[in-house]
């Protein structure tokens, strides 16, 4: 599967994306700094693949996902989706392009308008972007409900009457309504319990096959990413530190942060679990408003060198499709 996706076309091309949120303080609300939530990330997503985006809380994963769909006005950088540059496009123009790119949100409860019925939530994008008749719309909505495994009889119910898993299915049906090519899944399973997580992830996979979708799958759950993603990008403090295929990354992680992150995955076999050597990181993540000089990870890196505190490493391709931003691999 990997080979066919890698040979495919690039659907999403992100270059040097920066999303800084200003901090205002003082009597006159002067701009005193900025939170560098996303600080220069670049990657490609090929058509039909799933790119997993992992990292700990607050590393900028969700911000990156939203910025790529231009739900924020980005600070800098270029985003090309399906060959169209949307980085500097103003919001009203962007509206017309929303059908190509959609998002499944993290919190299925809060992200659905509590005052609208399921049919209205799923059908609303159709009002805005198509000129379907009432009957066609109804058909389309019911078809989408079938596709995500919701009973058609539920069309006139309201979000609060559903369970978490069902609500996430509503969210997915809503995202699918306009036949998008690219869907950002922003921790779609984080708010669900484990048995439901598997159902929703399998549903996402089935839909990918059926509609030929491309996913950016944001998650902090490494086992889930291992299950669904074709390639994985690891983020730390607003940067992508490592990007590789799933097999490569889980077999031979290169960046010290990735190594630490992967060593934290629990091992189900208790006899093996005892032998697992965990890499424990010291200290806290630095504030994204004051990232350290040099490499962002230098304050906590177990293999820190002098150069790390001076010069910021850039992403280097150390093997085919395997990028690492670390001075350890500078010469290879």
């Amino acid at each position, binding site marked *: 599967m990997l080979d066919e996706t890698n040979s495919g076309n690039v659907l999403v091309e992100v270059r040097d994306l920066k999303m800084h949120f200003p901090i205002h303080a003082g009597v006159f609300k002067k701009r005193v700094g900025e939170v560098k939530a996303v600080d220069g990330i670049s990657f490609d997503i090929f058509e039909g693949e799933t790119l997993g985006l992992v990292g700990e809380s607050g590393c900028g994963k969700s911000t990156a996902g*939203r910025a790529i*769909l231009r*739900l924020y006005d980005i600070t800098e950088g270029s985003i090309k989706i399906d060959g169209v540059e949307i980085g500097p496009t103003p*919001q*009203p123009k*962007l*509206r*017309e*392009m*929303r*059908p190509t790119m*959609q*998002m499944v*949100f*993290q*919190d299925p409860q*809060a*992200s*659905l*308008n*509590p*005052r609208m*019925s399921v049919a209205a939530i799923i059908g*609303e*994008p159709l009002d*805005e*972007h198509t000129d379907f008749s009432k009957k066609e719309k109804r058909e389309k909505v019911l078809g989408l409900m079938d596709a995500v495994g919701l009973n058609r009889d539920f069309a006139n119910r*309201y979000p*609060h009457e559903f369970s978490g898993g069902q609500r996430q299915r509503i*969210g997915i049906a*809503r*995202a699918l309504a*306009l036949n998008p090519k690219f869907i950002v899944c922003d921790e779609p399973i984080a708010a669900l319990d484990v048995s439901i997580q598997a159902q929703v992830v399998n549903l996402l996979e089935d839909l990918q096959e059926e509609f030929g979708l491309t996913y950016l799958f944001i998650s902090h759950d490494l086992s889930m990413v291992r299950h669904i993603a074709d390639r994985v990008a690891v983020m730390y403090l607003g940067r992508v530190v490592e990007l590789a295929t799933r097999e490569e990354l889980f077999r031979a992680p290169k960046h010290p942060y990735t190594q630490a992150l992967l060593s934290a995955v629990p091992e189900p076999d208790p006899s093996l679990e005892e032998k697992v050597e965990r890499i424990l990181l010291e200290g806290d993540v630095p504030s994204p408003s004051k990232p350290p000089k040099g490499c962002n990870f230098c304050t906590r890196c177990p293999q820190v060198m002098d150069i790390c505190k001076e010069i910021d490493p850039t992403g280097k391709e150390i093997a085919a499709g395997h990028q690492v931003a670390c001075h350890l691999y500078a010469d290879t």
Partner: protein
Amino acid sequence: MLHFTIRRLLLAIPTLLFISLVIFLLLDLAPGDPMASIPLTVPPEVKEKMREALGLGEPVHIRFLNWLYQFFVVEPQVAFDHLFGTNFAEGKQRIISFQSRSPVMSVVAERMPQTLWVVGLSYIFATLIAVPIGIISAYRQYSWFDQIGTFISMIGFSIPTFFSGVLLIVVFSVILGWFPSIYDTTHEVTDWSSFVYQMKQMAMPVFVLTLYNAAQVSRFMRASMLDNLNQDYVRTARAKGLSEKVVVLVHVLRNSMIPVVTVIALGVPTIFGGAIITEQVFQVNGLGQMLITAIYASDAPMVQTLTFIFAVLIVLFNLIADILYGILDPRIRYD
């Protein structure tokens, strides 16, 4: 919803009966004598006769039951007769005001139009102005528009109507001479110039009350919109590619209406109560002013009837607010 409404209406009956009893007893316990304004030259026996003629000789419970009978049976019959030309109420005792010796309800009917025009109109204006201001202030939080809106509503909130009313009179009637300072109730609108005069005399009281009411409603609207603008479902709506108009006016506004509906609906009974102070300042002889003079004169039937009507309106608009919640929020189901 229908069952809920009927159940609530039935529940309102004992509530209102209890309220009427409490008002009645309070008025009975209150100091003051309706005969106080009778000249001292009238001999005590005559005064006693007059008291009995007003029905004050009876014990409390008989007077209360009499009032209940008059309010719930006789007065509706009178209204029915008036509308359809029948004569059910003939020869029956109506509720009589101690001051004017005329039926309380006729006096209320006389005073109602002034109050409704001035106070009601200002309430409608206030709502029409406040809702858009609240929406824009929230959508452009901390913009110039929002700052000015906040400043004006702070003024509306914090300056009492007896001050802003007098200030307006000083500026616009005394110094500039644009508007009359006293509301002339006897004025009748017959042609264009009398209509203009009516507008002129209404302008200042309406403005004062509009400022006061709009300040409240716009604050509630703004706060409620701000609460909802940051919700996740708003981001979903934008991700759907909806226009900002739809996002704000359909998604956010509908979710923001509940607290605002409460404020607006529960404010409606106060229209009928009249803005007592503002009516006093501008000499509008509406219901509020009538209540004040009735209290001064210990006119128990008048005070009793008016306060009870206010109680009925408050109970009624509470119910209306609850029904509106059900319409605005599908999660609220009463059955």
